[in-house]
Structure formats: C-alpha cells, structure tokens
C-alpha cells in the first residue's frame, strides 16, 4: 500500500479530546506524525485578566475537569503569595487530601482508557467501577463528583470533620481492597496487556531529559522528578517517595500510574490523620501585586502558573504551562516506526490532556 495520511481525530472515540494527529502511514507503519491543535482553545489566560482575581479560581478549576482541584490549588498558591496570605495548616492538609483524590481519579480514568484503547472492555469497566468509589468520596467531602471547587484563595471552603474522615478512611480501604483483588493482578500480570505495552513507545532516560518530559512520562524513564518534593501545601509534612520505573516503555508508564494510585491512597489517609485542628480559611485583604510563580505536580506532571499583578482587582498577566505541553514532543520520538494499531496505546501513554494545554 502506498503512503496514506490518516487524520486521527479531532473526533475519535479513542481520544476523548479533540486533537488531530495526521498520521503518515506506509502500510501499517507510522512514518510521520503531525499534531494539529487549537480545537479546544478558549482563551482562558485572557479571560483571567478580565475577571476579578478571586473569580479566576472558578475558571482555572475548569481549565480542566480531571485535575480541576490541582489547577485551583496552583492558582491559589500563586495568588496567596502575591497577596501575602498565610494559609492555615489545616487547610494545607485538606488541600493535600483533595489533590491526591484528584490524582487517584485521574490515574484510574487513564488506566481505564488505556484498557479500553486495547479493546479490553471488561477491565475498563472494572477500573471505572472502582473509580466511582473515589467519586463518591469526592461528592461526600466536596459536594461534587468532578469539580471539587473547595479551594479558594486563603484556604479551603469545606472542612472534613472527624466522623466524615472516618467514613472516608473506610471507603479508601474498601477501594484499596477492590484494587488488590480485581485490578492490580490484571494490570501486573496479564499477558495480552504486556504484549500491547511492553517495548512500545520507548523513551530513554536521556531523551526524556533532553525533551523535558515531566510527570509519569519522565518517571517511567527513570527520571525521579516529582514537584511534590518541593513541599507545597503540606507535602513536606506528609512526606513521600516518588514512584519511578526504568524501562521507559508504555508499560513502565502504566506501572508508574498504577503504583501511584496506591501511593495516593496512603497520602490521603496520612493527610487526614495528621491534619491539625483549627481554621480552614483566612480573609484575603489586598490585591495582587508584583510577580509570582507556583508549581505543582499534576497527575500528568509539572504545572506552572506565572502571575503578574498591579495592585488592582484584575491580574495583569496569567500564564499557564501545562504538563502535556512538555510531554507532546516525546510523542514525536515514540510514534515513528510503530504500527497503526499501537498508536492509541502509545499516544495515551503520555496521558495527553488537551483541555489545559490549549486552555
């Protein structure tokens, strides 16, 4: 067969988000990839200059619904730095809790989509069934399944009392039990999954560093970088070790995420048990002035917000750099030379998220 160009997207069931990949194929081997973007651009950075800086929390949180809480957190951390607000300790621990809750549901979502892209429907269903347990916790603690909307400048909007913490703990244990019994064994051992993922989409440690990959994509190649190590929110007190795999293929990236789910559960339980008593929200007087940066670890990697304020209600500039933006170049290394059938798996393995990349 001659060279064909397949438009992959912008509407395609394997990629829930609209991005177009123009795949150049020779027979079924991919020889070139050209991502075409912009389908989801809303102009949020500009909108953030038009709105009151407190309202921006709600926009930032809807840059993307999957790690929505972490976007809000990153925004708030920066805005708090600019307005010199000290967040009460209890709020910092609660922020860790909801961050990890987002991460858990994001990783599960991704593991499910991966199974689905491999045509493993029953595993997809089981993973999403387990994910509902996490969403229930989200609804119970934050009042919504997806958009937690609990983080605002100066602290958090909702508290988790003792009784609810106990209930959450119980649900987390049940969730872990379900992971152990039905999902982890399949992900770790199933030969068909391994056949589809092992050795596919290789990214060496050097390439990962050179291309500036972040998050699980880099950790799957043995680069032990996790922004949570900088100790924002209460991560310093809670403490953790980044999850690293060294193989550098799609399977290694899968394992990183699968192991991080366990890590998240531990972090959530720790955050709830170590949480001190006290205030959860302080008043914010004053307006953003000067410049600030804030960095957090999203499920997909490092998220950076840059702020510039001029002492008024509105920000002068808000710039967001998202993990997928840093990870897309790695696709250009991974895809050429692979089979058409492996394209979805490899593309998914960096967990591309267009919503926040294009904002």
């Amino acid at each position, binding site marked *: 067969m001659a060279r064909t160009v397949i438009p992959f997207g912008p509407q395609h069931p*394997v990629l829930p988000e609209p991005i177009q990949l123009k795949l150049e194929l020779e027979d079924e081997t991919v020889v070139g990839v050209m991502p075409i973007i912009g389908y989801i651009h809303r102009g949020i950075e500009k909108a953030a200059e038009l709105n009151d800086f407190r309202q921006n929390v709600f926009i930032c949180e809807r840059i993307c619904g999957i790690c929505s809480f972490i976007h809000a957190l990153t925004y708030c951390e920066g805005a708090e730095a600019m307005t010199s607000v000290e967040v009460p300790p209890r709020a910092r621990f609660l922020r860790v809790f909801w961050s990890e809750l987002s991460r858990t549901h994001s990783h599960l979502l991704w593991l499910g989509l991966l199974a689905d892209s491999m045509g493993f429907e029953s595993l997809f269903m089981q993973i999403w069934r387990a994910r509902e347990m996490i969403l229930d916790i989200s609804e119970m603690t934050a009042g919504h399944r997806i958009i937690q909307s609990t983080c605002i400048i100066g602290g958090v909007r909702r508290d988790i009392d003792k009784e609810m913490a106990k209930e959450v703990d119980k649900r987390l244990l049940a969730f872990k039990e379900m992971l152990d019994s039905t999902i982890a064994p399949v992900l770790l051992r199933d030969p*068909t999954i391994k056949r589809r993922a092992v050795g596919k989409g290789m990214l060496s440690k050097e390439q990962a560093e050179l291309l500036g990959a972040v998050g699980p994509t880099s950790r799957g190649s043995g680069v032990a970088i996790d922004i949570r190590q900088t100790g924002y929110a209460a991560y310093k007190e809670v403490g953790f070790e980044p999850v690293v795999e060294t193989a550098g293929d799609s399977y290694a990236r899968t394992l990183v995420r699968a192991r991080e789910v366990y890590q998240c559960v531990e972090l959530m339980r720790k955050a709830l048990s170590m949480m001190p008593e006290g205030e959860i929200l302080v008043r914010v007087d004053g307006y953003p002035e000067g410049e600030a940066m804030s960095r957090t670890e999203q499920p997909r990697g490092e998220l950076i917000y840059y702020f510039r304020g001029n002492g008024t209600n509105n920000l002068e500039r808000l710039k967001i750099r998202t993990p997928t933006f840093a990870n897309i170049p790695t696709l250009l290394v991974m895809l050429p030379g692979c089979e058409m059938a492996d394209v979805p798996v490899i593309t998914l393995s960096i967990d591309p998220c267009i919503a926040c990349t294009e904002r």
Partner: protein
Amino acid sequence: MSTGWLIGSAVIAVIVAPLIGGLLRGIDRKLTAHMQGRIGPPIMQPFYDVIKLFGKERCVAGKAQLVFGYAYLTLIVTAVVFFALRQDLLVVLFILFLGCIFLAIGALSVKSPYSQLGGHRELLQFLAYEPILLLAVVPIALKLQSFRIATIFESGQPLLPHLWLSFIALLIVLAIVMRKSPFDISSSEHAHQELVRGLVTEYAGPYLALIEIAHWYEMVLLLSILGLFWVVGSLWWLSIIIALGSWFIILIVDNISARLTWSWMLRFTWVAGISLIGSNILFINLGWM
C-alpha cells in the same frame, strides 16, 4: 431424505438463521454486560438496532460499495442454503469466502482512509482464518472419505472424539468471525478502536443493517459447522450444546483479553491452527484417532 424436505429445511434456515443470529447477539451483549457487572441492553436489542437502521435516512458513499455489500449478503445466504441442502462442505466454505472478500472489496472501494485500512485489515484477517477453516474440514473428509454434509449426517457417529484438535482450531476461527478480542482488528464491536469500525465506516442506515444481518447469518453458519462435529441421530441436541458451548467460551475469552495486533494474530492463527490440524491429520493417518 426427500428433496422436498430438504428444500423446506433450506427455506426455514434462511428465515430462522438471522433470528437465531440476532438473538445470540442479544444474549451475547447481555452476558458480556453481566460479566462486567452491568445490566446491559435487553436481549431483543439487536433487532431494535436493525429495525431502527432501516428507518434511517439513506446515504451511500459509492454505488460500487453498495453492490459489494449486497453481494456479500447474497453470497452468505447462498452458503446457508447450501448448508441446509446438505451439499458439499467445501462449496459452502468457498461461497462464504467469496462473500467475505466482497465485503472487504466494498470497504476498499471507497476513498475514506479508515474504510481503506479497515478493508485492508479485513483481508489480512481473512488470510489468517480462511486457510484454517479450509484445512479444518480436511480431517472430516479423511475420516469419512467425503466432503458432503449429508455424509456426515448419515455416518451415525460423532466426529468430535476424533477431531477435537481441528475443533479447537475452528474455535479460533469463530472468535475471528465474531470479531471478538483478542482478534477484533478490523471492526471492533465496541467502536473504541483506532479504526472506528473501519470496515463498515462508510455503510450507513439500512445498508449497515444489511451488513449486520449478513454477520448474523455468518455466525450461525459457523456455529452450525461446529455443531457438525456431533451429529448422531437421536442425540442431535448435543450438537446444539456443542455449538453454544463454543460460543460461550469465545465470550469469556473476549472478556478476559485485550485486542492484539494483526501481525500477532496472523502468526498465532497460522502456527496454532496449522499445528493443531496437522497433528489431527497425522493422528488420523496413524490410526490413533
């Protein structure tokens, strides 16, 4: 058996086969849903789908594709008729192959790259299972000295004890024809695949319904061939159980495995299929089976 009776059974087969096929698809979806912890659609769902498709607005990508689509359906029905008339098994299979090739050519006749790749894959898939299917009937002939289905009915002894290796090879073929994991490479049942139901992307509305019905015929035909491995006069229900049992095994395998790539599929079906059937033939010749 009288000719009149045979013709009657052929007519019944043509009418009943799609009903059975559709019903099996419905049960298939229900069982799959239950295995995944869901309720799933009603058992009559495939019929609703097909009737609805007939009520959709017509649209064709190309006249040629339509012709190929109709040819596919007609040939599959012919194969079913020949089977019901208890003709030569080889003839039935060749008509079936011809039908499948028309389906692939139909997909290749439109410009859409998805359809093209889907057609291409269908041909590859075809390459994977057709030789196995053909070879699998050879041991039958070796055993009975004839390819005629009527002979199998007359022989009065079950084939399965002698031919269980070929039977396993046929199970692989069945999985491919039912487009189940790990072999659903050209048109996955649940569209979540890189080709978006590649093979049938360009068929829409009533035409998609016809293709669906042809699939039902095809599945029932294959199940009947599997059933042939146990036809003993009074124990005829055992052959139905065997066919349904095989069908159930395929369902289970579908739910516990991921889709594999076509290159792997080709290798697997050839190596496994040929070695299974080859050893079967060998054993027959050695008089062990």
